């Protein structure tokens, strides 16, 4: 029996629509790998995949989306898309309320909140599709490095690929300080790295299907890497929620040895480099500078 037949017989959807918001402006450092991962993991299960690039005038094309993805971007593009996101707010809200799963990374995470404030650009209002606000204080330390996050006990994300693994890993590179409103919970607790604000000990924001009055799953996170290839459980949870229109369906398991090998090595390497916080000790930095001066 082919994978496609299996999909049909299990009553699984045979078609996945991924809406990729501003694929040209917001495509920083491999974020398109998230799209590749969702698409492959669907097609490996016999599901046909359609990826739609969505720009400012494409609101109507959000109808029927199963997964909505928005990636990171440089400051210039982040400002440029802010107004366009306000224009798209209604079709986005409608698609999510019809059960589409939303995944927003880095600049996308900041831009979909209620507001984003920085001394350079002032206050940029957002569509409020994520119940978060972001400040970028003048001279704020930039959080750069590998990050590992622990999902809370009993998280349905951990269960999505049948293995119950609770760790999510990625690469953070931001100076935003994001705080969560009452209708969202953090993605997880920071094991290594800095996360939402470097102080709370939490990373990301999640609204499970139905939370906050919307039927679709919503996840915002600072994790690049890209996020999904090294975290197959999270990739499958996004797929299952979107395909199930808010009621996650059961997906046949895939052979994920390569993905979990990459996950484990990344986590091990960064745990050795960045235990708790990333910045090198004062002595380590002095040693670097002295070494550079005498020609190491």
């Amino acid at each position, binding site marked *: 029996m082919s994978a496609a037949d299996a999909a049909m017989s299990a009553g699984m959807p045979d078609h996945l629509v991924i809406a990729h918001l501003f694929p040209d402006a917001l495509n920083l450092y491999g974020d398109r790998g998230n799209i590749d991962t969702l698409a492959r993991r669907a097609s*490996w299960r016999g599901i046909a995949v359609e990826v739609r690039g969505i720009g400012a005038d494409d609101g109507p094309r959000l109808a029927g989306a199963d997964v909505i993805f928005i990636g990171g971007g440089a400051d210039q593009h982040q400002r440029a898309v802010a107004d366009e996101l306000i224009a798209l707010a209604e079709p986005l809200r409608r698609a999510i309320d019809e059960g589409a799963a939303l995944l927003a990374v880095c600049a996308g995470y900041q831009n979909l909140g209620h507001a984003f404030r920085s001394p350079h650009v002032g206050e940029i209002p957002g569509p409020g599709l994520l119940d978060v606000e972001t400040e970028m204080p003048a001279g704020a330390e930039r959080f750069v490095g590998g990050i590992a996050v622990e999902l809370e006990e009993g998280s349905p994300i951990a269960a999505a690929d049948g293995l119950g693994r609770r760790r999510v890993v990625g690469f953070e590179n931001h100076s935003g300080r994001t705080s969560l409103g009452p209708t969202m919970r953090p993605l997880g607790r920071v094991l290594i790295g800095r996360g939402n604000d470097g102080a709370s000990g939490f990373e990301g924001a999640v609204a499970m299907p139905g939370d906050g009055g919307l039927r679709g799953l919503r996840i915002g996170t600072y994790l690049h890497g890209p996020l999904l290839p090294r975290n197959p459980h999270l990739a499958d949870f996004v797929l299952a929620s979107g395909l199930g229109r808010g009621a996650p369906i059961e997906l046949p398991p895939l052979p994920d040895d390569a993905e979990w090998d990459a996950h484990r090595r990344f986590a091990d390497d960064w745990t050795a480099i960045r235990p708790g916080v990333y910045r090198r000790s004062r002595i380590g930095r002095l040693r670097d500078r002295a070494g550079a001066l005498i020609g190491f």
Partner: protein
Amino acid sequence: MTAPRTRPRATVRDATALLAARGLTWTVRRLGRGATSLPGLAAGRLAPGIDARLAADLRGAALVTGTNGKTSTAKMLATIVGASGHPVLANASGANLRQSIGTVFVGATTLRGRFRRRGTIAVLEVDEAALPLVRPAVPGGVLLMTNLFRDQLDRFGETDHLVRLWTGMLGGEGAGSTVVHCADDPRLTSLARIAGANGARLIAYGFAGAPDRTSAAELTPEPVACPSCGSQLRRAWTTIGHLGDYACATCGFARPRPTVEVAIVEREGLTGQRLRFAWRDSAGEASEEVVLRLPGLGNAYNAAGAVAAAIGLGLDARASVRALAGAEPPFARFEQFAVDGRTVVLSLLKNPATMAELTSVAQGAPIDRMVVALNDAFADGRDVSWYWDCSPADLVAGRPYRLTGRRAADFAVRLKYAVCDDPAVPPPGYLGLVDDPTEAVDRTIAEAPAGGTVLVVATYTALLGIRAAFAGRGVLPPMPR
């Protein structure tokens, strides 16, 4: 107007600083280290601005900067300058901060502040992020900007940040400066115009037209909007990523006609290419062909940049093109050596542009096996996920390949998602993962057919390790200091 500083005092102070720097150089060398920064730093502290005063005694100077191609371009330009009969003063690759350039100057001058070899021309590679800090050390002369690609964002911040840094600096260029820039990079064209508006001489270089691209070196173009008005740029053709011919339909911003144009006449695999140059000068239009011993579109650009900079330095254009025949591959750019009757080609992989370039060069070249070594130490860039923006499947192109380095497992996943129609079947040609880069190369060489070729592409620290291991066995010269 303020009175000029009295010259004798400055001279005494400079001489003292030069003497101190010499003592430091001697001491650091005795300690068995390369003195690349400390003497210049000390001289600059004792006599602020000494580097610029020394630079005034040069016959000419060119700073070479940009995200890709600095080292190769600087090396080609140094070859051209050397062939013209002028003594060349160059800095070692990587030693490109202000104090490093000061160190190069104090090492080449007398205590009176004169260059020991009269008529010396300096060709200095400068880190793109350090450029605004380095520029005051070598005012005037030629400033060559190669390109602005995304590169190691975690270290240098976004490209926008570089553009802001350079914008401020270029506002200070004037009639004494010659800004040489790649016409095919819209951001550089816009930046050069800032200097041009202040009276700097501009020399643009670029491709003569769409390159005959037989390869599938696909590089997701960065979203480069019109630098003048922010609209979408129309593109007639592209070469690498966002480089190419462009025009803005909204404000009229467009690619200038290059003074120096290059075209690839014939590709010669991994060993080189025949290039045709066409240029315009006071004598009119002229052209000349040369065989460059470095392959790829990127090196064609580098060669054109070197010729344009040579024109900026007042050297003869035709002689400069001919001199390129003597340009050697720089350290770890398509560097070749023999092991057990196999040819090993070693090349640096550092960002999407270099991967696209390697892909296009490898296309059609006789390569039996490949090793891809990916590390993510500080010098590699901590975040190497840019390979999701490339087509690594086109790089390996069905050849047997082995992966190694700290991020090898991530690259294995990248290839799985790029090519596998069945997740249970490994990608075609995949020989597996070996943790140690040198061991991976050794095993791959041993498996290659006698007389065959192994292409090794590696990020910076992986490459240093592999190179040091083979230099230790005497099959290639040690890394230049």
